[in-house]
């Protein structure tokens, strides 16, 4: 499993500065923004953080999908985006 993880990281061009995922056996499907510590998409928090968001729209609308903000890149990203700076959210024991 460790070999697989190492190969996978090399293939993705993951840089040394990128932190480790929270768990080595994290399925690949989870290594996307929705599982990253830098990603924020809670609708209520986004409404509070973005001025005017709730005036003529809503964080809970279908059109927003799962999009959120990446605090690492300061960009809007879709929850299924990915990048080499992925850092898994701490798992709860």
């Amino acid at each position, binding site marked *: 499993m460790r070999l697989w993880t190492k190969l996978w990281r090399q293939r993705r061009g993951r840089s040394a500065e990128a932190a480790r995922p929270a768990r080595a056996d994290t399925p690949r499907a989870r290594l996307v923004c929705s599982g990253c510590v830098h990603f924020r998409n*809670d609708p209520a928090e986004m409404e509070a953080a973005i001025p*005017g968001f709730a005036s*003529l*729209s809503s964080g809970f609308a*279908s*059109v*927003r999908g*799962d999009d959120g903000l990446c605090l690492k890149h300061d960009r809007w990203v879709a929850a299924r*985006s990915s990048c080499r*700076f992925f850092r898994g959210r701490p798992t709860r024991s």
Partner: protein
Amino acid sequence: MSTADAKLNGSPVQSTVGWRELWLKEDWWAIYLGLGLVIVGVVLFANGSSLKWLAVTPAKWSSLPQLFDNLANDWLRYLAQLVFWIAAFSAALSALGHKARDFVPAFLVLYALSFVVFVAGQWREAFRYNLEPPLLALAIGLFIANGGALPRWLDAGFRVELYVKTGIVVLGATLPLTLLIWAGPVAILQASIVSIVTFLVIFWTARWMAIDRRLAAVLGVGGAVCGVSAAIAVAGAVGAKKGDAPTAITTVILWAIVMIFALPIASHLMHLPAGIAGAWIGTSEFADAAGLAAAEAYGQIAGHDGVAGTADQSVWAFTLMKVVGRDVWIGIWAFVLAVVATTRWDRQETGIRPNPAEIWWRFPKFVIGFLLASIIITIAARNYSMSNYNKVVVPGLVGPLKDLRSWAFIFCFLSIGLTTRFRDLARAGIKPFLAFSTGVLVNVILGFVLSAVVFASYWESLTR
């Protein structure tokens, strides 16, 4: 860390795609509430009863004693209605993660203000003083919110989108399916022309001003499709910078508020028939809630002062243009721009392979509820002749639904004003504002030509 970042505490990320959307998205709750009302209304109507008792609205009045008499007679109905709205919206908002204990006191304030607006609008002299309830609600809301007297915790009750979507679903019950089939393709054609032209004008003007193409795209869809919602959707699809969406939001809100007042006034000055003005507003307003305020306000003028048509025609034409014609473009724009961003624009550090399923994920689902409501009422009323429809179905079924819809819209119009604090909006910058304004100018002229000249015969003759 900025103040905005500090509010992003990092709550657990929840996927809302797939079946989870059914209880985690506002659109679906608007369908449950709106269609629930329609179905209950149909069942009661079929059994010889009606929603009429619950759907109480202030009656027309010309003197204060008359007003107080009306209110004294109906206080129990208003109380029941208030309890109904609290129960319905609390259930929806609790499922979405809000706290009912925050919502209920805020909604009590909203209902009280809505009641005042409704009563003022029913004054027989209101028309003379331009006291159309939508505009009055918006003005009162803006005045309170920007006067600094409004505590932030009250925002829990000002759910603009939930109210407007619920109202639009119920509105489907008043719009016959035959009309949808007849005028729907025209709406889609007109919306397609306007969306593409407006987007390209804003995008290329912004690029000419050396604005980043991602911000240009976000501004473009904000003007072309559905204002703030489209801007947010496309910001995610193209990987826009964090400040791009707030910039678009500020420009959209400022222009949307201006248009709520400007379009009905311009239509009135030109004595445009209600259907044509509704189509123009649907083409040239930037948000459903704002556009409905303008269309409803113009509907109140219809039939007076040289304005032909009915209030229904204004709202129907607006809804066909904006909801059926323009809103459904959101997913398509998001997908196309995601493809362009990942294949044509410079590669960035965050990446995603565009997925055609995005068109469905981002589809404004409440439109489905709107169509279903129209189908249900059309089936329920299929055996009635036109005269019997007006004599039996309207007072027993469609009328009460229309009254409940009016309440939902008043909640929405007040909430727009109450949540729009101009001093809180992000600074948009002169270039983005000018680029967007160029698109507004083209959109308004093109929308007028299409609504009042090219497709005028369709919009003018919208009837059951």
